[in-house]
Structures are given as structure tokens and as C-alpha cells.
């Protein structure tokens, strides 16, 4: 049954999209710090570079698990938010690529694309929820 909370399926507190997102962000920050300050070499460098992948995969799993617990209107809202984030990110990237070719933007960091998509997802979710209020 749906009770309006974000995670409808009973699970330990750490099996939650919010916690998993924090864990993923923590992995990204830790990976950057290690690569920048400790500067490991060889296999350790590869391991440090991929440090954020396991928590990010965990985040995807918790997100899918959360979606399975939603009702049909909530499914629609999440689908609209994800669609909005996806297509808007494409348009933004095309625009940024054009500006880079035009010499207006000197460096476009693709590594920040996921942050933009998360922001667009949150905006899309708020917009879609408002539509059905």
C-alpha cells in the first residue's frame, strides 16, 4: 500500500534512494580527493578512479526498488520527470557543444552532466507532481 512516503517497500534504513544518493556523492568526492592529494599509481589509481561506481550502482538498485513500490500515478510522475531530465539534458548539451565550437565556452566538463540531470529530475518531479495536485 502507498502511504505517501518515498520508499513504500519495507526495508532497512540504508536501502533508500536518498541514502544511496548521498553514498554515491560521497564516493565521487572521496575519489576526487584521493586522486588529487594522495596521487596513487597503477592499480590503486584505477581503484580510486572507480570508487564511486559501486555506491552508484547501489543507488540505481534502490531507485528501481523504490519505483516498483509506487502506484500508477506516481509511476507516471516519475516517468515524466525522468523524460524531462533526459530530453532537457540533451538540449543543454547540444547548446553547450555549440557554444564550445563557437569559442564562447572554452571547456565543457561532461563530468558535471549527471549533476545537471539530477537537478533536472528534481525540477521535473516537482513540476509533474504539481500537475496532478
Amino acid at each position: 500500500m502507498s502511504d505517501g512516503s518515498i520508499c513504500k517497500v519495507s526495508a532497512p534504513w540504508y536501502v533508500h534512494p536518498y541514502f544511496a544518493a548521498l553514498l554515491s556523492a560521497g564516493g565521487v568526492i572521496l575519489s576526487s580527493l584521493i586522486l588529487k592529494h594522495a596521487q596513487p599509481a597503477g592499480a590503486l589509481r584505477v581503484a580510486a578512479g572507480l570508487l564511486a561506481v559501486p555506491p552508484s550502482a547501489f543507488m540505481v538498485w534502490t531507485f528501481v526498488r523504490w519505483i516498483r513500490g509506487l502506484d500508477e500515478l506516481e509511476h507516471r510522475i516519475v516517468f515524466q520527470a525522468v523524460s524531462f531530465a533526459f530530453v532537457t539534458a540533451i538540449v543543454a548539451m547540444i547548446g553547450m557543444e555549440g557554444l564550445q565550437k563557437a569559442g564562447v565556452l572554452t571547456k565543457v566538463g561532461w563530468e558535471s552532466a549527471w549533476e545537471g540531470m539530477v537537478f533536472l529530475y528534481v525540477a521535473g518531479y516537482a513540476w509533474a507532481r504539481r500537475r496532478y495536485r
Partner: protein
Amino acid sequence: MGPAALPVRNRLRVLRAERGWSQAELAARLGVSRQTVNAIETEKYDPSLPLAFRIAEVFTGRIEDVFTPNGSVG
């Protein structure tokens, strides 16, 4: 392009009020969120066929007593 779908009207708010149920109570009976019940009542969202049948079952058992195509004489 295919024919346009008929907008669907419903008597959910009336039927709920007759039984003295809150939106949250009805949502609990249906296994959906309160927002979903509200969106159906305000006709911002048309439920799926399985949910429409479940709504009918909770109230009367007949889907046409709850949902009618817009413009239908009933």
C-alpha cells in the same frame, strides 16, 4: 491519427462522501496514494482499467456507476 479518447467523468467524490470516507481512507482501501485519489476525483488523471475495476468493487461493483464518458447520458 487515431480517434481522440473520450474524457472520462467520475462520481468518486460523491460516492466517497456518501460513505463518509476521507481520501486517505479510500486510498488505503485501494492501495494507492492519497494524491492518486485526489487526482482521479479532480479528473486530472484517468485510472488504469485494473484500478477503475478496483474502485468500482470498493463502491458498487459496477464500473459504469462510477465512471462515464464525458457527454454520456449515463
